[in-house]
């Protein structure tokens, strides 16, 4: 049987998916144990118990200086920045994307501008953002917005622009005004695509968040890993990275769930 035709059952595919992950973990543990046996103060590849010890202080104990649980205040600060950045990007993408996609005069006026902004590498704008907004929260949120909003705007504009002409004509023959057409035809059909765009932007959004935190911050997941890097504290960095990955995965699953439950028609299945 050809490999392209091999079908994998559900339970088998879970097992097969877990296999390389477990294999990597085992390889890591073997190498880490090896290095720890030679050097008891090994820092590069810490064993799990070392990670648990290091994280316990951050998760369950108040920091002596700030009086806060560092792990949780880092998580909260990063999620707040990310959430704010995603929310502003999503709303502006919906608004600008719709206007660009469905109103030819708006597309003619602003289409090139949005495309132009989307081409600029956002990190190159970071110094400007720091100069304009200072080193506070605004600059970090602004970096996320500038990084992902233009892509999302173009995606929504493209999607709305490619709605079948027949639908737009039909709506008009049913008496729809421009406003009614936007409200009842364009917005609902933009929503599943918008969620999809948020999912795709989630990765870049994390990149911009951690970059901004690495450069200038007092709290945040990105700030913490770049801070403890100075002490080669892999026992903190590795759990933090795993935590970031877990958060990203949960947000992604949550978005899929929203899209499926609220916009079942777009997923070709029964509600």
């Amino acid at each position, binding site marked *: 049987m050809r490999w392209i035709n091999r079908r994998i059952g559900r339970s088998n595919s879970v097992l097969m998916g877990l296999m390389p992950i477990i294999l990597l973990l085992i390889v890591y543990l073997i190498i880490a144990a090896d290095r720890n046996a030679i050097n008891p103060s090994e820092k590069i590849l810490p064993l799990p118990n070392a990670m648990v010890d290091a994280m316990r202080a951050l998760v369950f104990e108040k920091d002596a200086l700030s009086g806060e649980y560092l792990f949780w205040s880092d998580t909260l600060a990063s999620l707040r920045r990310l959430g704010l950045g995603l929310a502003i990007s999503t709303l502006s993408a919906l608004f600008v994307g719709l206007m660009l996609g469905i109103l030819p005069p708006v597309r003619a006026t602003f289409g090139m501008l949005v495309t132009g902004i989307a081409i600029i590498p956002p990190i190159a704008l970071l110094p400007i953002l720091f100069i304009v907004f200072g080193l506070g929260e605004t600059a970090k949120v602004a970096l996320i917005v500038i990084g992902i909003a233009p892509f999302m705007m173009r995606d929504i504009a493209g999607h709305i622009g490619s709605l*079948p002409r*027949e*639908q737009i*004509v*039909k*709506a*008009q*023959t*049913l*008496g*729809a*005004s421009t*406003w*009614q057409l936007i*409200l*009842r*035809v364009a917005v*609902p*059909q933009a929503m599943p695509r918008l969620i999809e765009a948020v999912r795709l932007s989630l990765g870049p959004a994390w990149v911009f968040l951690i970059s901004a935190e690495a450069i200038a911050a007092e709290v945040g997941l990105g700030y913490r890993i770049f801070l403890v890097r100075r002490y080669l504290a892999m026992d903190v960095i590795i759990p933090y990275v795993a935590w970031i990955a877990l958060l990203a995965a949960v947000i992604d699953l949550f978005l899929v769930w929203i899209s499926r439950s609220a*916009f*079942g*028609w*777009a997923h*070709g299945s*029964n509600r």
Partner: protein
Amino acid sequence: MSAMLQLRDVSVEYGDKIVLERINLDIEDGAFVSIIGPSGAGKSSLLRVVLGQEAPTGGRILLDGQPLKPECEPDRGVVFQRYSVFPHLTVLGNTLFGFECARAPLTARLFGNRRKAAIAEAEEMLHAVGLGDSLHLYPAQMSGGMQQRLAIAQALIKRPRILLLDEPFGALDPGIRADMHKLITRLWNDYALTVIMVTHDLKEAFGLATRVLTLDKRRHDPHAPDRYGATVVFDLPLDRKRGGGSELNSESIVDGAVIDPPGITIDKTCNI
């Protein structure tokens, strides 16, 4: 009394390409007009200018004596071959849309008793097209034939002066197509519709219509194929009365070629 829809010297050009030229037509109230012709003869262009989706390059179009705005309005309903229902609305939602646009300009949604009244009207129309049991399905869950039934119900809800059909049954199976022919004939009778239908199917064109128009180019310059546009080369009135049999008159067609059946007078004066 003048005809309901009048076209006077209508022409359509795209740049140097002349698609239609000097179309003169009078379409009476209650007519069922089929438009046939080879591909590229401007059938759909003609439909688009009547619909208002495009403005004609020249000439005038009058509906009930009034010049037509080059914009789609609810007095002209349309059913396309594909994509004319909204994928994000249920059957009922698709049908209600016309009511909601007219009765709720700001929110385009109806609530409470007004919604109930609109639903009752929509359900009646959906029963008429045979979708009474599928109110809460989404278009993606329905067959092509059911989607076209929905598209027809959706258009008829607005009681359009003219119903324009652009190859509405072209993508359907032959069996389904025959059902749809019966349906459209019944609706044409029951609702006293005026229909203009573009089709590729000669049998359909002659079977359903009270009048068949053939579009083609009168002159053809092989060195400049776009120099001359198409116009109405045959205008065949059929003696099919409203309320007549809904079966297709298949004897009039032999292997797709049209022979002169009784009741058809071919206007040979406008031959090439």
